[in-house]
């Protein structure tokens, strides 16, 4: 593997000269983004299938075996459709908004590690970077709602903005407890910290992961992640039965597809983050099995199915109930648990040394 990489580097230097580091970085970006986009496409297929079976339907089954080519067909259909710009819309912002929605969803993947060494940019403050980049995802929604010059779109944008800003606080607190027990902002080190502990020495690594000692934070983080991605039961920003389709009601064709891609890419992103921060990332649940990126993918898959399961199970929250949950339940819970973890770490019972 190393020898192959070395020969590849030599060949690249021969071909591109001084530009090789740039080309190599581009190649790595494509290696992350292309499977991600494929994952997004098949996540939509999986969603329709899973929810279909939960509702005793079959789901897509016409295009290809088991409907497997359905997402490709949907993508092509959207690609060939006309992008209609409403006459009263602010044209520049109307076009920029979908790009602003998808750009943070992709940019955050720059620091996501897949194993100890398999990471595009292993920076010191990668957790902070993720928090900062994901907090910018809200602009795509607000601007699309405003630029559409439609009251439904604007209502959706306002709901979404308030919701995302509120749940970011709970999310940030959950992340603070994780970085307290890990003593690092680097995602690789956070995962490595979860591989140590009393249970890990006994071969039961899955009990050493952060989800057990930080169980309330794990729950808060995952629910806040649901709200951040505007997924059911927190999808008031779309709210088909109340405000048509919310912020993207005026969008068509590929501009609409970008919002769609951004939502699903964000789902995969927050699932990966939950797996990294609370479920031990790429470490195997038991000592006798080897670690590897496959474990990470398996955990992400389970969390994604949870997303779909929730959508099929829970009715949509009312707007005031969302605000109550975010501010009056999660924020106090997080503050209390922050103190509990702080005192726990100072006490002789500290398990994170």
């Amino acid at each position, binding site marked *: 593997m190393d020898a192959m990489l070395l020969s590849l580097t030599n060949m690249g230097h021969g071909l591109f000269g001084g530009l090789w580091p740039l080309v190599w970085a581009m190649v790595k970006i494509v290696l992350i983004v292309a499977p991600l986009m494929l994952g997004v496409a098949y996540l939509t297929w999986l969603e329709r299938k899973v929810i279909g079976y939960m509702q005793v339907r079959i789901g897509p089954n016409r295009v290809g075996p088991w409907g497997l080519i359905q997402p490709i067909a949907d993508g092509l259909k959207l690609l060939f459709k006309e992008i209609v710009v409403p006459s009263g819309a602010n044209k520049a912002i109307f076009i920029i908004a979908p790009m602003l929605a998808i750009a943070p969803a992709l940019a955050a993947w720059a620091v996501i590690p897949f194993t100890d060494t398999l990471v595009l940019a292993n920076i*010191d403050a990668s957790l902070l970077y993720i928090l*900062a980049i994901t907090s910018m995802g*809200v602009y795509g929604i*607000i601007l699309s709602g405003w630029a559409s010059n439609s009251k439904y779109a604007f209502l959706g944008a306002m709901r979404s903005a308030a919701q*995302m800003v509120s749940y970011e606080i709970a999310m940030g607190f959950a992340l603070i407890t994780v970085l307290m027990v890990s003593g690092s902002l680097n995602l690789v080190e956070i995962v490595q910290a979860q591989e140590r502990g009393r249970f890990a020495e006994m071969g039961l690594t899955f009990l050493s992961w952060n989800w057990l000692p930080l169980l309330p934070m794990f729950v808060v983080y995952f629910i806040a992640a649901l709200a951040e991605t505007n997924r059911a039961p927190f999808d008031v920003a779309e709210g088909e039965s109340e405000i048509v389709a919310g912020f993207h009601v005026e969008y068509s064709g590929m501009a609409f597809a970008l919002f769609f891609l951004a939502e699903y890419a964000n789902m995969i992103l927050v699932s990966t983050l939950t797996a990294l921060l609370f479920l031990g990332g790429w470490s195997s649940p038991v000592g006798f099995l080897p670690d590897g990126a496959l474990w990470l993918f398996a955990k992400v898959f389970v969390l994604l199915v949870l997303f779909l399961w929730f959508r099929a199970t829970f009715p949509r929250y009312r707007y005031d109930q969302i605000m109550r949950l975010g501010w009056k339940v999660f924020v106090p819970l997080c503050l209390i648990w922050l103190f509990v973890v702080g005192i726990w770490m100072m006490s002789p019972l500290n398990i994170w040394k």
Partner: protein
Amino acid sequence: MDIPTLTFFAFAAVLIFASMRVITARNPVHAALHLILAFFTCGAIWALLQAEFLAIAIILVYVGAVMVLFLFVVMMLDINMDRIRQGFWKHLPLGVVIGLLMVLEMGMVLGSRYFQVPAADAIEPANVSNVKTLGALMFSDYVYPFELASIVLLVGMIAAIVLTHRGPKNTKYINPSKQIAVKAQDRVRVLQMPVEKE
């Protein structure tokens, strides 16, 4: 010129352009968007100076939270630009004085070496993360100023709530926690009625 310097000038050009547009844009939403661009570019320049914590913090706090709410307000308000422009010449002298004062202060900071002002030396410890150094300083040497600043912020927060809170409203608001805690027995009474026979 090496690549970092080139990048710096590119960012600086974007920053100056964005800041100019903040005060010249006719549409207030465009002005707010350029302010966001200015904050973002500012973060990028700080990242070039290897102050990664500050760079990420400005994006997280200003771009991710403050400007979202700001944009929110700007979008909701119906701002009449002509009314705002009315007092331009009347307020110009005061504005010029304040602007000159700010330019002077910035010049003092930039020319601190020339004016013999003792500038704080940038500490660059090897292999220690920026965040750790900042945290250690904040909670050891500067703990009192830090706590004072947080108390001031807290007071500001409470003041904002007190100023805008108008007391309990007489609405038909339903308490969600009561709604959740409701039981079927409290609402529905199942009656046993014997079958009436002729």
